[in-house]
């Protein structure tokens, strides 16, 4: 896979044709631990932030053949978050809210994510992320909206070589399953547990938001009794520092071929406090 490219503006028929951007890659460990787990590359091209992700065996939804939505959410969070973070320098950001509408689940891949900064205020930054399937005529796959809070971390922003390029090393061995890659225990039913491994922590030492998105996705599918997660709304409420992290999912209703599941996520090692709240639509047979 190559480094992130971009398409020509808003013309959906223009293939991505930009050359490899210059710059020295930023050490992946600074920002890219979860990127590596899902095979996401991201970086700056001009004033844009672009990501690219292939559909791998462990990130593929069995029923549809496309990228699992938890992974798609993680990628939207990472690419949109980089756009918001770069716009906030010398401060940095944390994700607070992620809303994704997933139009297609049958991706060929790789998928390209184009982030646009929609708003930059003193306390918050908002990015829109358009997702297209480069392997299927660049057709639209999804759109995400990421809201972030601007912080001034004591340790400063992550050290970045500009323009930023984050190209993770390939995984040494295939993780077998997405659940295993993200420390999610096997299981069924309404409660799903994630073991907070150190490699799932972000730069601030807390559970990566992408891992929370994957946990919500897996928990919603289990609570629905099958199907494939699609549209999602995710609120990051508090950091998860200790673990294990438990997702409690309730199927709140069924609409045609879609089950709407509400997922409340808690840090069991921190008095069980609520760390995230999600609503996930699960498509397909229950």
């Amino acid at each position, binding site marked *: 896979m190559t480094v992130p490219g971009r398409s020509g503006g808003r013309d959906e028929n223009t293939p991505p044709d930009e050359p490899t951007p210059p710059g020295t890659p930023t050490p992946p460990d600074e920002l890219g631990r979860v990127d590596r787990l899902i095979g996401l590359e991201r970086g700056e091209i001009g004033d844009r932030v672009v990501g690219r992700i292939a559909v791998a065996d462990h990130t593929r939804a069995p029923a549809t053949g496309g990228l699992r939505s938890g992974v798609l959410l993680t990628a939207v969070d990472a690419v949109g978050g980089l756009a918001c973070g770069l716009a906030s320098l010398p401060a940095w950001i944390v994700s607070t809210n992620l809303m994704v*509408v997933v139009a297609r689940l049958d991706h060929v891949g790789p998928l390209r994510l184009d982030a646009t900064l929609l*708003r930059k205020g003193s306390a*918050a930054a908002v990015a829109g992320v358009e997702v297209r399937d480069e392997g299927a005529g660049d057709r639209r796959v999804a759109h995400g909206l990421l809201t972030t809070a601007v912080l001034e971390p004591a340790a400063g922003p992550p050290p970045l070589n500009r323009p930023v390029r984050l190209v993770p090393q390939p995984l040494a061995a295939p993780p077998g399953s997405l659940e295993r890659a993200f420390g999610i225990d096997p299981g069924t039913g309404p409660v799903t547990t994630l073991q907070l491994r150190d490699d799932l922590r972000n730069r601030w030492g807390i559970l990566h938001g992408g891992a929370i998105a994957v946990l919500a996705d897996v928990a919603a599918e289990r609570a629905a009794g099958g199907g494939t997660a699609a549209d999602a709304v995710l609120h990051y409420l508090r950091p998860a520092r200790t673990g294990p992290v438990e997702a409690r999912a309730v199927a709140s209703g069924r609409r*045609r071929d879609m089950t709407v599941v509400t997922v409340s996520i808690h840090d069991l090692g921190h008095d069980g406090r609520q760390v995230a709240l999600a609503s996930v639509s699960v498509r397909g047979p229950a």
Partner: protein
Amino acid sequence: MAATTSSGGHTAMNTRTRPWSQAVRGPVRPGRRPGPSAGAGPDGIPSAPAVAAPLPYPPAEHVLRDLGLEVETTPDGTARAWMPVTPQTAAPWGGTTAGVIATFVDAVSGNLAAVAARPDRVATADLALTLVHPATGPQIEATGAVVRRGRTTLVVEVQLGDVGWASATFAVLPQRADAPGPSPRPDGRRAVFGGGGRPLPAWIGDVIGLEVVDAGAGVVTAPLGAYVANSFGALQGGMVALVAEQAGAAAIGAALGSPASTVALHTAYLAQCRVGPFRTTATVLDASGASGSATVRVFDTGAGDRLTTIAHVRAVGGDGDGDGGHGGIRGSSGIRGIRGSSGIRGIRGSGG
């Protein structure tokens, strides 16, 4: 042009320009008397008085009153609320249209947020809504709870019974010494939001002057008027959601070849809709079989076509499939989502 909160008759406000807000508000406080109005600048943007005075909001003729919302806020940080299901707020395939439910959610969650944030103010930053069953009435009941109260943001979850689920994020706006705000006190009483509304005389879209210009492109327009304004005199956040929802449903309906009812709505508020008229565009992401999705952008044509809001809409067409989803057309609602409006503007004095 009143610069008050979007909640019940109450409260003074700081009218300083807020980058986030669709509405800056305090909780419902029944029984407060209206006070004098704040001034507005020549561009229609409220100017900041040195000391804000109590202001009437919503004004006597306002959509929030006419939707008949009732809210009961309790001291434990939760709220219950009710909204009547009416033909004037119906969606093409039954139930209340998502944009009106979003207005309900915004009002309920905004009230809770305002109580939780005191003495600071709050403004809606984003709102998400997922519907699973059409609201068949006679009313929709909501239960709201604050799930996070942080220094800069506040998150409220709203359960809509078997109708659906919603959530909203509010930006916390620090209280300013020169703008004494409300000192809200949850009193546990069920109060009509604003009080004294009248039944809508026509479908809500017609009442607020919403017009479908180009259904396929998701182009709808809507004017700004006192009837639909928030405390800044900008378009009220729930009404912005309604406009976005109608635009998305129009575009998806055109792509499906059938009227479409919105079943999910994500709204990110980027800037206030201050001037108007407002104009939308929609991009359909997919439309096949029974449903489709779209992104919608809301522009303020009177403010240099500023992008004010971006939304995701998922809508279903056809006649449903009878499995408890959005099935069963209701005769009263017709195809309003994709039909041009009758252009009844300012029927309630929304003179802009």
